[in-house]
């Protein structure tokens, strides 16, 4: 299995919507 690690996730807004069965990504999440 591949793993999307935390270095690549840095500064993105990462959303775990388990109920809707989806994962989201948005740029500039920390700023």
């Amino acid at each position, binding site marked *: *299995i*591949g793993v999307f690690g935390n270095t*690549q996730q840095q*500064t*993105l807004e990462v*959303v*775990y919507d388990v109920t*809707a069965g989806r994962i*989201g*990504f948005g740029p500039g999440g920390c700023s």
Partner: protein
Amino acid sequence: ALERSEDQIEAISHHYHTLKLSTFISSAVCNPSTNGEKRKGSLQMVHKHGPCSKFNEDMMKSLTLDEIFSRDQSRVDSILNKVRKEIQGSKTTLPAKSGSSIGTLNYIVTIGLGTPKKDFTLAFDTGSDLTWTQCQPCAGSCYSQQDPIFQPSTSSTYSNISCSSSECAQLDLARCSSSTCVYRVGYGDGSFTIGFFAKDKLTLTSEDVIDDFFFGCGQDNEGLFVGVAGLFGLGRDKLSFVSQSADKYGKVFSYCLPSIDSSSGFLMFGSSGIGSNVVYTPLSASQDNSFYGLDLEAIYVKGNKLEINPTVFTTSGMIIDSGTIITRLPPTAYSALSEAFQAEMTQYPLTQGPSLFDTCYDFSNYENITIPKISVVWSGNVNVEIPPQGILIPVSNEVYCLAFAANQDDSD
């Protein structure tokens, strides 16, 4: 730049990042993120070694790079073992090190526990389910942590869970001690925690309180956890915080992991406040375990799609994990990525790096660098551009490596 046409400059900015190398260095001053702050269900997220961390230097004696990447590999190995175990069935003989993993949990949040509330700094982990903290009297052993160790007898809302409870039955490894449920969690690097399965009030903010939160009150805690008071488990299983707080937050959470120069991020529960520019990919149906699976479909370098047979991605699948540092790709996909990246970096001298990496550069003569942009495309044509801090990782003051690595086999 003066010699370039406007079209050329536009093309360069569209497909490349031009950066100061200092972008990759930690700032000395803590500038807390304002995004997510003061919202309901929101916590500040900081890097354990960043400027907003309250951990002192003695507590946080730096690991060597070899140790860091060895632990990262240990975490990935244990994830692979756990997934294999669930695919092949529980009767399959597997290495003893299967199970959740500790690895390199560098991101930390502070939560409150008990009545009156005491604050504890926990490692944030989407690859673990059970939340636990070290507990007095540390009947086995406790490692050193920055916060005072939780004292259950001082909390008026604390209680142990009985062996006959349905919650005790949900633990992977449990036994009874005088009718009290005792949990055990082993991690991929040999670390473990054993203690009383308990419940108490958990406080995120004054408005966000879970009255009966089930967690591990660790009496024997050994391994590479030093500094943090325990783990905050955000996996998909029934005992994770995500499941236990489902009534309150609807199994929705979001975070921003700060880069080393951006001081702090956030961890937020619930759907309010999620950015309007977020794009969604389906959770993968193929990952029937506590990990969060997603399907990678393509990789772009400098706007060009890499020629990778789609079956390379579908054979093994992918998960997203907050505790693994370096993204692992099937070898065929990694080779294509590395080759395309190197083709755009011919102006910089290649050099040797840690064994996990094979694409490292010596930037000792540079203040600014230009690197090609990298994007990944998830199922549903969801294109995510990797931030520049996610493309290169500094392994010394001068040497920076492409921050991706290969699994051993495309079928891993």
